[in-house]
């Protein structure tokens, strides 16, 4: 079976991050004769996640654990003319358009030699409709072709989450007591630095904070300078201006860390699966629709705090408030937002890690998207 993944990089790294992870997971979980091909329109973004990728090479084979993926890099999906043997399954990720010659060959092959499947891979959401739309047919009306929505999600009857096995092994830590990472969208982190300085000062502890390259970097570093200027030197905090790292390295850092600010989709899922306390900044949507996504996530997360009893309920309420505060924005800005503070994540690290590990374990067991996709394809193609 040949599975083609089509990826259009709309902005940032999230699109290719998810699709490349899915390609690897399919190789990992698929039968021995499964061939995975990936077509992407931004080689530079892909290389940032996997240095082995040559952004200039049109066709290349990229190694991954358990096998390899054939990668096609093109500046434009619409104009891409390269063609090989038509796939059996076409996964159009996040609305990416399949190049016309590929689609034509796919349809011809379906009509001539048997069933083919197209999957519309959607963005991850915790909203209830994810179950209703997952595997919803989207007929194309061509002989031998069936098309479906494939909706990732946290709920049982969704496509699940994109991840690979085994869980990342924690990266070696420095001598500091705390390790934290910041990788989000634009945000003023003044309160973060102030809270962290107070927290460490009270406990006589130290922290290393990795400020990752990307949209949150400027706001994080600028606010750090401001806090130092107003409070004086703060030797308990070591700030690292961290260049972008490969996916595996990032996952290892998440596994090693104590608190992570994450964003979008891929870093969010990886932080969740690390079992570590995290704060998620959702992708900004028109009319503040990201708040709906955040509320839906809080709804599916809350029951995992129940085993912690009354204390768990209190901690959840405070954590939920911080999620709401961070995501209550109508446009990208670094404007300061009133917040109760970050200490809830650190004061309650042990409880949050227990909750995190329980959910991560369940998700790893029952919500692996690649496995669900392969199981569905097996049934659909019978």
């Amino acid at each position, binding site marked *: 079976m040949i599975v083609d993944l089509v990826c259009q990089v*709309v902005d940032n790294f999230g699109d290719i991050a998810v699709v490349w992870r899915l390609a690897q997971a399919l190789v990992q979980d698929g039968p021995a004769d499964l061939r995975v091909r990936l077509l992407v329109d931004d080689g530079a973004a892909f290389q940032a996640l996997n240095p082995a990728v040559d952004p200039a090479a049109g066709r290349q084979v990229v190694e991954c654990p358990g096998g390899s993926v054939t990668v096609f890099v093109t500046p434009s999906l619409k104009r891409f003319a390269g063609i090989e043997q038509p796939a059996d399954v076409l996964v159009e990720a*996040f*609305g990416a358009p399949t190049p016309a010659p590929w689609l034509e060959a796919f349809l011809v092959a379906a009509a001539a030699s048997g069933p083919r499947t197209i999957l*519309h891979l*959607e*963005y991850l*959401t915790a*909203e209830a*409709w994810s179950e*209703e*739309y997952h595997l*919803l*047919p*989207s*007929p*194309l*009306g*061509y*002989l031998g*072709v069936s098309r479906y*929505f494939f909706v990732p999600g946290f709920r049982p009857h969704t496509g699940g989450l994109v991840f690979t096995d085994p869980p990342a092994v924690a990266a070696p830590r420095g001598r500091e007591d705390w390790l934290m990472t910041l990788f989000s969208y634009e945000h003023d982190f003044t309160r973060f630095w102030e809270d962290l300085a107070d927290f460490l000062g009270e406990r006589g502890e130290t922290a290393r904070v990795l400020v990752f390259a990307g949209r949150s970097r400027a706001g994080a570093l600028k606010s750090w300078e401001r806090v130092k200027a107003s409070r004086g030197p703060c030797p308990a905090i070591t700030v690292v201006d961290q260049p972008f790292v490969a996916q595996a390295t990032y996952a290892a850092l998440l596994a090693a860390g104590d608190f992570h600010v994450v964003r979008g989709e891929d870093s969010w899922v990886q932080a969740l699966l690390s079992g570590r306390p995290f704060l998620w900044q959702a*992708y900004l*949507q028109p009319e503040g*629709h990201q708040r709906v996504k955040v509320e839906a996530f809080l709804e599916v997360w809350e029951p995992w705090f129940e085993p912690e009893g009354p204390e768990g309920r209190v901690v959840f309420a405070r954590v939920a408030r911080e999620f709401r505060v961070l995501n209550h924005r109508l446009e990208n800005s670094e404007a300061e937002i009133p917040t109760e503070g970050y200490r809830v994540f650190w004061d309650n690290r042990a409880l949050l890690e227990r909750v995190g590990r329980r959910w991560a374990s369940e998700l790893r067991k029952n919500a692996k998207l690649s496995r669900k996709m392969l199981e569905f394809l097996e049934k659909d193609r019978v």
Partner: protein
Amino acid sequence: MITASELKVGTVFKVGTDVLVVQKLEGTKTGRNMSVTKLRVKNLLTGTTAEAGYRLSDTFEEIDLDVKKMNFQYNTGDTFHFMDNETYEQSEIEKEDLGDAPNYIWEGMDVEIVFYEGKPVTVKLPILVDREVVYCEPGIKGDTSGRAMKPAKLDTGYDIMIPLFCNIGEWIRVDTRDGTYKERVKK
């Protein structure tokens, strides 16, 4: 070409080699950078009905259709009977092919009937229709905000939510695209 965002109940469109008619719009959901819509459609070539989802940006070939103004005469359970106003010719459409239209049409109403290859397949409704409230709890004087709603039944049998200030015997305007109350009207 027509986009999925333009599909309405009764729209006939071509998908590949299939000709589909929209029987019901079941909602639109927003993901990042895109929205998807869920429909109930009938395949006019095979007669089968199914749920289907499309991205709002999906495009379809439009079908050349004959549309005739006809008068709704009566229904006999699951069959609705219409008459051509000029030729007096009778046509029948099964209730399931009318989508939500039975909620808004009444005997004697002129509607547009859509024909595909000589066969009536669906009805095109006006966007707004005026109907009488035949049942609801008593109105509450002074509440004219229209924000608080109560259940009601229209003379077509349709159950709808209306503002608290509306009463039995009053007429309201209904949006046939989503079945919601628009305003109170004087008759």
